């Protein structure tokens, strides 16, 4: 399961982790991504996670569920998750197929995501409208 090159990167930026997915991941790679990321949250003592999916032109139901699960797991380990860079086509296709990111916050791009994390951590997270 852990074979082959990694198709994602997890970088530390201050108290945050920036996880970029570089290309479409298959299911086993998604699981690996989830494991690595949840582990890194603990080891890096991250307060927030930005997951950048801008490179993806498709997000299937397993991928969006995994992202939602990562958000939940990260919350349990004390970090806020923001998903950024969902492309217009991907966004509409996800909604058409009845998928969403659950309680995970979304933002336009990396910069927005970091700003979102800043405001989430400055004030206790409020439910989004």
């Amino acid at each position, binding site marked *: 399961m852990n074979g082959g090159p990694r198709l994602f990167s997890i970088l530390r930026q201050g108290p945050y982790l920036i996880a970029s997915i570089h290309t479409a991941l298959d299911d086993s790679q998604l699981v690996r991504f989830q494991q690595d990321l949840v582990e890194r949250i603990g080891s890096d003592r991250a307060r927030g996670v930005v997951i950048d999916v801008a490179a993806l032109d498709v997000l299937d139901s397993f991928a969006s569920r995994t992202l939602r699960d990562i958000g939940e797991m990260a919350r349990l380990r004390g970090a806020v998750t923001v998903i950024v860079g969902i492309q*217009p086509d991907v*966004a*509409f296709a*996800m909604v058409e197929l009845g998928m969403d990111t659950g309680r995970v916050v979304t*933002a*336009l*791009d990396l910069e*927005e995501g970091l700003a979102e994390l800043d405001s989430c951590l400055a004030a206790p997270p409020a439910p989004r*409208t």
Partner: protein
Amino acid sequence: MTRHEDPSATVAPTDVRHELDGEALLPQLVAHLREHRTRLRQEWVGRIQEAHLLQAMTAQEMSAETTLVYDNYVEVLETGSVEALQHYARDLSERIIPRGVETHEVVGIVLLLRDVLARSLFEKYQRDFALLNRVLDAYEPAANRIANTVAVSFVEERERVIRQQQDSIRELSTPVLPVRERLLILPIIGVLDRERARQLTVQLLGGIRTHRAKVVVVDITGVPDVDESVANHLVRTVDASRLMGASVIITGLSPEIAQTLVTIGVDLSKMNTIGDLQGGLEEAERLLGYAVSRDDGNGGP
């Protein structure tokens, strides 16, 4: 065409008029129609007025148009060429559609002209029934073909005009306007059909991306009604915008639309709606952290 052979088959070869058969008859009757052009045209105009057709036109226009149509008609009878016929029909449609002429009027006047001309042929050949029959054999298919082609090209021309107008309405219909940094307005005016709703989604999501918008106000004050599929599409577009990190505020829901949406049971719990565009902009500014105040300090929103 069978009309070249039919008369000679029914008429005995000894008939002295047999050289007038087929091809020769048509030029003869065209010559007749040219000769009596003014009288026949006036008779035709009289019939048009009696039938209350083309009332959108003035007397001068009517006179000019009927002259043109008459000459074209006779020319097509003479040459019988399909190109000339189509050209004539297209030309006619192009000229009269902008004046608000209806389909039944165009077909009506062409049929009237056919009848007027047929009647003049009856008159001319009434003493020789066999010859009249052959003249009509030559005349009727040609005249019917003209009527047919004119009707078809008129409808085609109308459809082309309608398509063209739909395209231009569509192009103009969904502007994405940046009002402030990170704030977009999409005013929608006119009927939201499936195609426009799809286009709206593309424009909205694309606009969020290019303008890096955080809040989008979609104003549907100018939308008279929506059906279920369009309403669902709207809800999905709002969800998709949220996935891209933007909040959508819908403003100007008319009482009819509000009733429709609730009656058909569209799930609007996630929709942020505000009464009018003004309120929507104030809410958007609040979301973006703007505080607008007037110079004299007497408040603002």
